[in-house]
């Protein structure tokens, strides 16, 4: 910045200050005229006030009040209607929301309940299957045991029957013909048996007599 610029700025500032001072003095001098003007304005205000009181009298005010009341009532009615609509809409939405929430909650609960039932059913089925498997195992074991016992008993009976077969058949033969058969009738059988053992008898007698 050169000195010329600086001078220009300082000159501008001084000019502004002088204008400000002039304005202040001018205003100071114009205060007496304002008082006169203020009185005139007060008069005008009073006149206007009086005219206003003439225009806005009681009837007009009552009319305005009625109109205001009606307008207010109208606005209130409209707002009440809007409020009612909003309330109804809100209630509907709330109902829908509640219904949806309740439905969702119920469905979740039902799902949980259903899942619980399914789980319980599965557990019961598993338990039943295990029980059935155990019973089947027990049944097979018992069947095998009974079969082995039966076989053993059968074998024992057969063995005993075979061991005692001669006695049993002899018993039944005696039951059938015991009281009717005489020694004389048996003689052929006896002699045949003796004939079969003749050699042994003879040898034993020879040993006994020698």
């Amino acid at each position, binding site marked *: 910045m050169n000195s010329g610029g600086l001078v220009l700025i300082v000159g501008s500032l001084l000019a502004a200050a002088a204008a400000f001072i002039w304005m202040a003095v001018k205003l100071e001098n114009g205060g007496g005229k304002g008082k006169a003007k203020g009185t005139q304005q007060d008069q005008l205000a009073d006149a206007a006030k009086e005219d206003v009181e003439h225009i806005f009298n009681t009837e007009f005010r009552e009319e305005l009040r009625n109109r205001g009341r009606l307008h207010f009532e109208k606005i209130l009615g409209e707002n009440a209607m809007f409020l009612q609509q909003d309330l109804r809409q809100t209630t509907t939405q709330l109902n829908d929301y509640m219904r949806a929430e309740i439905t969702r909650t119920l469905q979740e609960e039902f799902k949980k309940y259903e899942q619980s039932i399914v789980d319980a059913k599965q557990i019961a089925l598993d338990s039943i299957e295990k029980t059935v498997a155990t019973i089947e195992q027990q049944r097979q074991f018992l069947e095998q045991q009974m079969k082995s016992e039966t076989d053993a008993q059968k074998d024992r009976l057969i063995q005993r029957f075979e061991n005692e077969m*001669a006695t049993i058949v002899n018993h039944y033969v005696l039951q059938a013909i015991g009281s009717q058969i*005489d*020694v004389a009738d*048996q*003689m052929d059988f006896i002699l045949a048996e003796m004939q079969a053992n003749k050699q042994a008898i003879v040898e034993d007698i020879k040993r006994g*007599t020698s």
Partner: protein
Amino acid sequence: MEHLKLSTTVISPADVARLRRELNGLNDFFVDAQARHTGTAMQLPKLTRILNQLAKDNSVNLLEEADRNRLSEALGAAYEHAPTLHISFASEPSPKAMEKLIVWVRGNIHPQALVQVGLQPTVAVGCFLRTPNMAFDLSLRASLKKSQPQLVKLIDGAINGR
């Protein structure tokens, strides 16, 4: 006497002993007859059919003392040494059955064999024979026991319908 012929009526050692007693009685009778007083009445002894048969079979004159002695000695020998078979039956055998049995025994085992009969109800059918050292179960039960495989086969066939 070489070989005493025993009739089928002489079955057991008891019969032999009874014959010996009878012979002894006969000897006593003849001794008494010789020692009797003249004119004394004598009661003639009655001989049993068995002794008569025995005397007849062995050609023995029972009026002769020597024959009687020989017969008595033979009977004593038979009583002492003849093989005796003990046979037990379920019931008392009839004389006819015993005769059949003794004929077979003397024809097949020994000519002077004696048989002592006993009772053993458990035998049921058949008999139980006992020799001096052995015993033979000749009952139906023993016979069935011997043929047990055959019985098993028969029963198996009856059960299975073959």
